[in-house]
């Protein structure tokens, strides 16, 4: 039963990684850049939720909705100010800009909200479901996290495979020049991708801080890095890959904490990543891209 308990916690943590990883992977897919500021958008989303609930007494779910909208706007602004001018620049310049943007967001948060940790109120309280005569308990937030992740995964898959905008996103991911010749507004499509990714980051922020209630300006960075790892693990650019990578990473991390050592859990996680990349360099579900001449 403890095994099952750990497994469920792993899936729940993995669901959060998966939601964050979806943002990384969609942005990478369309703009071929690693948006290292993505993790910090999670933190901004969590702070917005926190203040909306604690200071303005908003319903927690409404607070998440507000955070999603504001984070989407933040995503569009970050892309427009920092990345759009570098569309033709070498990828190293874009990467460094993304790291700079990450520090910029963290330090702005430090100025606005100070480094004192805030205790985040869970969006669904601290209750739990008890099953099997109390041998298995699943907290409400754990259950909610898994459900939300599944809903997002299904919705996003339908969006990119069925809707006109979703298909346009895939077209832009493959060939921006050709997409322009179809009459697709490539800049608007990229902005929209950042908006979706950042909106998802806000949800991830609320779920993450509901499960692990300490909120600080650096709250987003480690989950951000782990989710990036999850995206690479699953095959960056692939939406099912981000989902699978996130879940696996969460389960591996919790098992490593439970059965090996909580200090070594991150080492185990990144060790597994290294092994996967040695065996399958494009990630679990990634396709090897061939450079066409």
């Amino acid at each position, binding site marked *: 039963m403890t095994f099952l308990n750990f497994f469920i916690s792993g899936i729940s943590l993995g669901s959060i990684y998966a939601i964050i990883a979806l943002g990384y992977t969609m942005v990478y897919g369309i703009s071929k850049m690693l948006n290292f500021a993505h993790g910090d958008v999670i933190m901004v989303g969590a702070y917005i939720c926190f203040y909306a609930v604690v200071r303005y007494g908003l319903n927690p779910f409404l607070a998440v909705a507000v955070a999603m909208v504001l984070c989407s706007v933040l995503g569009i602004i970050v892309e427009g100010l920092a990345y759009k001018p570098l569309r033709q620049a070498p990828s190293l310049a874009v990467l460094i800009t993304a790291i700079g943007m990450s520090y910029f967001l963290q330090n702005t948060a430090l100025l606005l909200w100070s480094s004192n940790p805030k205790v985040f109120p869970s969006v669904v309280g601290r209750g739990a479901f008890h099953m099997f005569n109390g041998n298995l308990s699943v907290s409400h937030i754990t259950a909610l996290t898994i459900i939300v992740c599944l809903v997002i995964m299904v919705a996003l898959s339908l969006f990119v495979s069925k809707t*006109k905008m979703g298909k346009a996103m895939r*077209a832009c991911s493959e060939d921006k*020049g*050709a997409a*322009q*010749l179809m009459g*697709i507004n490539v800049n608007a499509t990229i902005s929209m991708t950042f908006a979706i990714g950042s909106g998802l980051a806000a949800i991830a922020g609320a779920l993450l801080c509901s499960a692990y209630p300490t909120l600080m300006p650096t709250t987003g960075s480690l989950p951000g890095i782990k989710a990036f790892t999850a995206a690479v693990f699953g095959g960056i650019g692939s939406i099912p890959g981000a989902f699978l990578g996130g879940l696996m990473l969460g389960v591996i991390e919790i098992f490593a904490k439970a059965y090996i050592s909580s200090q070594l859990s991150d080492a185990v996680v990144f060790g597994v990543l290294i092994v996967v990349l040695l065996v399958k360099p494009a990630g679990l579900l990634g396709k090897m891209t061939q450079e066409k001449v």
Partner: protein
Amino acid sequence: MADPVLKVENINVFYGSIHAIKGISFEVYEGEIVTLIGANGAGKSTTLNTISGLLHPSTGSISFLGESLAKVPPYKIVERGLAQVPEGRRVFAQMTVNENLEMGAFTQSSSSIPEDLEKVYSLFPRLKERMNQTAGTLSGGEQQMLAMGRALMSRPKLLMLDEPSMGLAPILVEQIFAIIADLHRTGATILLVEQNAQMALSIASRGYVMETGNIVTTGTGQELLASEEVRKAYLGG
């Protein structure tokens, strides 16, 4: 004659410091097939990409259906009825044939798509057989058909084709040119860029010969085919 569909006036285009297009002018009238022929690097594709708005002329003007295209972004140019089939086809390899065609209709209202899909599939029955395959699995000739069908989905008033014969076996080149001639017979206005001057001139109403960024000769397709100069330079004597 009526006003031209496309009027290019004295455009100059630079790639950084390279002067790729040196003050060329030409027109395309309704119902014509006009071809730009010339060697590799003469500036033919650059000309098409400038008309599509992917590149910008430093001087000169381009007008389409009587309206200037200056400062119009590429996606709005497609909306106005100007479609380009790019060099090397550039189909969306990981999307299905049907999805590629839908992308071609991006500027159209969704109600007109089923009807236009039927038209394209009747023009290219091969594509219909493969509608649910990803475009990357198609042969070169099929990809060229897909790229053409995709452009037709935008209901273009001018169809620009960039090197449709590139990399295709002679039999497929014949097929593709037969389709272009068919499109022309049904009233399409076409601007065709080709290195295969013989094929292009044989179906063209008029042609322009480009050389290192300049237009050096112009005439009807038959005149250029018969011209001594053109024969020597582009038709192998």
